[in-house]
């Protein structure tokens, strides 16, 4: 109940400060549920020709990762060296991951039985930006990690 009050207070405070992108809520009882997810990643590949590159992989998102609010799309090896903050913006689930001078943002919302959204990554040097389409679908596969 206290958590709900905190979240509501955050929504109210954000609304009062006039955030154009929607209310920002700190991590609480929301987030991506633990389980096995099939992640579809659509990214623009530029060389030799520019085209959409599609790849899929299965991600076991453990209960501990869900509780921590880990970024479910970033490769785990990389995520271990970064800091992820889970928030909610305008009802979307947002994972902001900072790795040194790199900023990653996964923003997803409910989409059918799963979630879909975008993965935006900006590097400062060289100044390059990537925005990919991300689709997460629940699968029946077992997720045995705790």
């Amino acid at each position, binding site marked *: 109940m206290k958590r709900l009050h905190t979240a509501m207070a955050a929504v109210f405070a954000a609304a009062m400060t006039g955030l154009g992108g929607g209310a920002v809520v700190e991590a609480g009882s929301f987030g991506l549920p633990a389980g096995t997810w099939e992640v*579809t*990643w*659509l*990214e*623009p*590949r*530029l*060389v*030799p*020709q*520019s*085209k*959409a590159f*599609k*790849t899929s992989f299965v991600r076991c998102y453990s209960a501990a990762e869900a509780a921590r609010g880990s970024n479910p799309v*970033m*490769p785990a*090896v*990389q995520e271990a060296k970064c800091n992820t903050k889970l928030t909610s913006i305008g009802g979307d689930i947002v994972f902001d991951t900072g790795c040194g001078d*790199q900023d*990653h943002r996964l923003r997803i919302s409910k989409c059918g039985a799963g979630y*879909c*959204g*975008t*993965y935006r*990554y900006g*590097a400062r040097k*060289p*100044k*390059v*930006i*990537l*925005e*990919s*389409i991300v*689709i997460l679908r629940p699968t029946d596969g077992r997720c045995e990690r705790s």
Partner: protein
Amino acid sequence: MVRGRAGAMAAACIVLATGAAAQKPYTGPETEGDAALFGSWSFEVTSLARGESGIGPVTNSVSACLKLGAKPADLPLMAQPLQGRCAMQRLELKAAYVSMVMLCEDFERRTSLMLHLEPRKDGAYAGRYSYTMTLDDDGSGTMSADADVVARRTGGC
């Protein structure tokens, strides 16, 4: 009223027929520019990609023979496949800049490509390449990439 509806349907049929014809692969216009700059070029493109161990910058190189009158389909970095209705607004290779702007649209996707390079002191051309694709099919959404490009003329071809 009936005549009006019939007229509207006929117009819709014409529009559909025109749309269907416009789905042929795009072929023109040709490259313009200073003849001295045409020849063999290498493009070094740094963009971001997702790999097994991380999401980070990746540099790839591509070479191309740029000839006066080359078609967009012959050029590196062009959107593939070139389909739907495309409008090439600029495709120039000049001493002061290298520039390309192209927009394509069909029933499922809209693509925009923008390349702008300017000369550096060492003779290379450097700048940005922006590529955006909006999909309307099952993976609907927008994806984009802003890349860092260094291009060098390596000789004739």
